[in-house]
């Protein structure tokens, strides 16, 4: 993000503050993509965002505070993206596929935030991992709501299956991000969608829907 012009510019104070805050949130994500958490200092974040140290502390109490805010902000952006894509479709399989495709596209286009959400979140300690779990839990209803009960004679899904599916996908994507393959995430759509749909529809039907879509 480019900094605003210096000096007199007639921009409101709130606008400037908001812009600085957004730049800092993007800067901590991109610093963490290249450096360790310890290596990501307040001056490094400020330098990237072109925000002075004193302005940094006007927005955040500490680096940890900035990290957690950036984490929640990225999670919210991803969820908004996925939810909006889901909302465009009526049928359950279409909704799930659209949500997954939108989520993968967003992560691929935002590699630093993908790293923040799926890799750094796991490594920043149990408290942040709990945030990570809470974040992914918020995706569970998008998969569960309106889902068929399960294929074949069993007619039901085991308890906790939807959480395990979302968790399994998050874990798979995290492994790919860690391997430096974030930009290729979009190509994983068929596999991820099959994994999500199969428990509900059976392998044959899931495959049919994905290959026809």
């Amino acid at each position, binding site marked *: 993000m480019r900094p605003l012009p210096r000096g007199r510019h007639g921009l409101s104070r709130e606008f400037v503050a908001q812009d600085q805050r957004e730049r800092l949130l993007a800067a901590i994500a991109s610093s963490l993509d290249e450096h*360790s958490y310890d290596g990501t200092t307040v001056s490094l974040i400020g330098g990237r965002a072109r925000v002075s140290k004193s302005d940094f502390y006007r927005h955040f109490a500490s680096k940890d505070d900035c990290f957690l805010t950036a984490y929640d902000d990225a999670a919210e952006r991803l969820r908004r993206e996925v939810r909006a894509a889901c909302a465009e479709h009526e049928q359950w399989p279409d909704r799930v596929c659209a949500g997954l495709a939108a989520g993968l596209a967003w992560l691929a286009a935002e590699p630093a935030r993908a790293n923040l959400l799926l890799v750094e979140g*796991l*490594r*920043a*300690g*149990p408290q*942040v*991992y*709990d945030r990570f*779990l809470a974040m992914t839990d918020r995706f569970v209803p998008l998969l569960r709501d309106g889902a068929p009960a399960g*294929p*074949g*004679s*069993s007619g039901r*899904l*085991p*308890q*906790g*299956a939807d*959480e*395990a*599916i979302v*968790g*399994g*996908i*998050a*874990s*798979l994507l995290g*492994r790919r991000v*860690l391997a430096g393959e974030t930009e290729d995430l979009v190509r*994983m759509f*068929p*596999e*991820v969608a*099959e*994994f999500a749909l*199969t*428990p509900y529809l*059976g*392998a*044959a039907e899931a*495959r049919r829907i994905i290959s026809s879509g």
Partner: protein
Amino acid sequence: MPPRGKAASSAQAAAGQASSGRRPALPREFIAAHKQRRITDALAELSAEQGYEATKISDIVRRAGVARKTLYDNFEGKEEVFLAAFDAAFDEAMERIETACTEAEGGWQEKIEVGLEAFLGYVADEPILAHMCMIEALSATPATTERYEDAVEKFVRMTGDTLPEDARLPDTLDETLVGGVAWIVYQAIRREDAERAVDLLPQLTEFMIGPFLDTGLAVPPAQAADENS
């Protein structure tokens, strides 16, 4: 309230007396291994209680009841203690799983179920080590995170070798299934429910078998149970 604290402290005192009494003539290696184990166990307990970072060498030696020098004779420092504890726990869990799978007489589906049962059994028997390996290891140091990733990779490979090949299913199924199981178990440990991890067996077995149900490669768990009885 019964005097629980008192009972516990007198039990500790008894144990202290026993260990400070006349030493039996045990081989030196046995004593060394025993001390190492006390040190690794102490770190595992302390990291479960207060986190890895907050745990100091002085806490570890106090909890283990060994001299500081003994710790440094055996380990370079805190990280090496952690890695030794991690490796020992991982090896033991792996061995239990492999033994269970080798002894299983049925097909892949039974191997998955007994392997899962062995894994969950380990988590239930060793909640503190499970906490260390699945929670603390993720964030303790870069070396421990790497150990965690390697362990996941080994589980993925083992699962992939056990599941039947089927072109109709996604190639990454082993990764997503292992990730999903780890997820559910992590949450149980975090809820301090590790002792009841075995209760998760039916749902996690169904989760792992589920994708194969209508491929003709798997039998629904209920039906499999009927056939076995």
